[in-house]
């Protein structure tokens, strides 16, 4: 029964990880920008939702809307005011990573100052667990997490395959030069990638706020998981990132069947470490030239 409970917890965590990871993977795949501050997008979205819904007591729809707006604004501002200027004169991996890293430090410290450093959770009627069977507890939120993930992936799939922007984004991940040759502007496309990627962090952040709660370093955790899932899944493959996010969520939770819970995060990173050494191209990735 414990195994079944952990499996359910794993599915919920996995759905959230998959959503966060796909956003990061989309940005990284299309623009090749190592957007370390994606974790900050997640934290901002979560805390805006918490503040509007739980502190100011405004309706749920307003809170989710504000959260989405904040994530969108932060993501596109990062692209416009940090990455583009940095890439204009010093486009190396190093400078982009450090700039992004710096922003994430600032965001984490600011959240700690403004919202406090303790854990906060938003309690909703859906967060309460009900007992399905002896020793098996499920909250409706878990189901909602999985359904939300599936709905968002379906929408994303439709955007990427059926719309012009989606097709252009997929083209961008193959060749900047060719995209330019077709008369498209890589900068505009990069803005779209950041917008869509940042929006994908919103549902994950909102569900996290309602279930396991937020603290100022939640962004770091979200970032680490996204990074791990993107690499394990294979850079450039959104399907890979989603599957890997799910696998990591399951692995973290199922590991506490045999190991103390303190080890759950380490388990994810052992998986990541082994992948980098033995299969750097990931589950679905194409062989990288590097």
């Amino acid at each position, binding site marked *: 029964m414990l195994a079944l409970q952990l499996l359910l917890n794993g599915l919920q965590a996995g759905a959230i990880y998959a959503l966060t990871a796909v956003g990061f993977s989309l940005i*990284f795949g299309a623009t090749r920008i*190592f957007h370390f501050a994606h974790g900050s997008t997640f934290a901002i979205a979560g805390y805006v939702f918490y503040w509007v819904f739980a502190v100011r007591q405004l309706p749920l729809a307003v809170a989710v809307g504000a959260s989405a707006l904040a994530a969108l604004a932060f993501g596109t501002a990062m692209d416009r005011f*940090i990455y583009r*200027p*940095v890439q204009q004169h*010093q486009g*190396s*991996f*190093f*400078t*982009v*990573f*450090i*700039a992004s*890293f*710096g*922003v*994430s*430090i*600032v965001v*984490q*410290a*600011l959240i*700690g*100052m403004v919202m406090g450093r303790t854990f906060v959770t938003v309690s909703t009627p859906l967060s309460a667990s009900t007992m399905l069977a002896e020793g098996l507890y499920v909250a409706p939120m878990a189901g909602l997490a999985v359904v939300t993930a599936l709905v968002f992936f379906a929408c994303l799939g439709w955007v990427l395959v059926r719309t012009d922007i989606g097709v252009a984004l997929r083209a961008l991940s193959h060749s900047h030069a060719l995209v330019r040759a077709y008369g498209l502007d890589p900068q505009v496309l990069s803005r779209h990638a950041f917008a869509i990627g940042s929006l994908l962090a919103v549902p994950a952040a909102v569900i996290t706020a309602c279930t396991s709660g937020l603290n100022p370093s939640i962004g*770091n955790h979200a970032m*680490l998981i996204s*990074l*791990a899932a993107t*690499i394990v899944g294979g850079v450039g493959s959104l399907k890979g990132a989603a599957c890997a996010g799910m696998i990591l969520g399951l692995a973290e939770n199922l590991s506490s069947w045999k190991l*103390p819970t*303190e*080890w759950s*995060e*380490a388990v*994810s*990173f*052992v998986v*990541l*470490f082994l992948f*980098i*050494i033995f299969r*750097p191209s990931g589950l679905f990735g194409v062989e990288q030239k*590097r």
Partner: protein
Amino acid sequence: MAAYLTNIGTLICINAILAMTLNFILGYAGIFSVAHALFFGIGAYTTANVALHLTHSFPIAVVLSMAVAGLLSLTLALPALRVRGEYFVAASLGLQVLGQTLFSEWKAVTGGMGGITGIPAASVFGLEVVDRLPFFLLSLVMLAAVAAAIAAIVRSSFGRSLKAIRDSESAASAFGKDVTAIKTMAVVVSSSLAAVGGTLYAFYISFVNVESFTFDTTVLVTAMVIIGGTGTLVGPLVGAVILMVLPVALSYTPFIPQTEIGSVQQILYGCAMVLLMLYRPSGLVGAPGGRA
């Protein structure tokens, strides 16, 4: 006041050792490790165990800590040989998280979350180093030794091979350089020298636990290197001094409440990192324009 100054001086020395050794692989070898705090920790835990169970001789503790950290750094060399850039950042991050978990869970060796307490004072060739001033002098000597070692290595042919690999791995191997051996050596040297900082720290504070060796420490040391300037000898030193003096300066600023100093400090160095990348990627000391 004198005790206060020697305290800051000692902490600057320890952090400068960390910054210089991180800069050695980051700035000269182009290996972007975010697991540096781990080797600091390995040095500190080794020293704590040596001092409690074997001997409180400082030279022996230094040698043993360096040996253990050097040996364990092969786990970092492994991904460094296979991948670069973001993949290596991810791999070293994985190592950092795993190491942190081991520090807090392997109770027999690390004392778990509670850590190891009651580490005896260091003794250098029979001389007990108990007071703060002699300890500060000892730290200064160790910092000078580490700096001299790094300066000598960087100027040697090995140092030139490192820079060649950083700039182009295939060109270096075309010139007959053994890329595998050189990279492995760089990681081992950097990690074992970082352990010297760990030895000093364990003897100085006489208490170690996982709190001092987390990802936050890596972030702080990385900020020191970046702000000072990568790929220069003085840069990390300057960065360490600035970032260690900053909280002191902030605590004398009247309008910042004491509880917020940590956050204000993080905001300041986070902003500094972003602004430097926008306008001066080589850091305060590095040559403007050139990415070191």
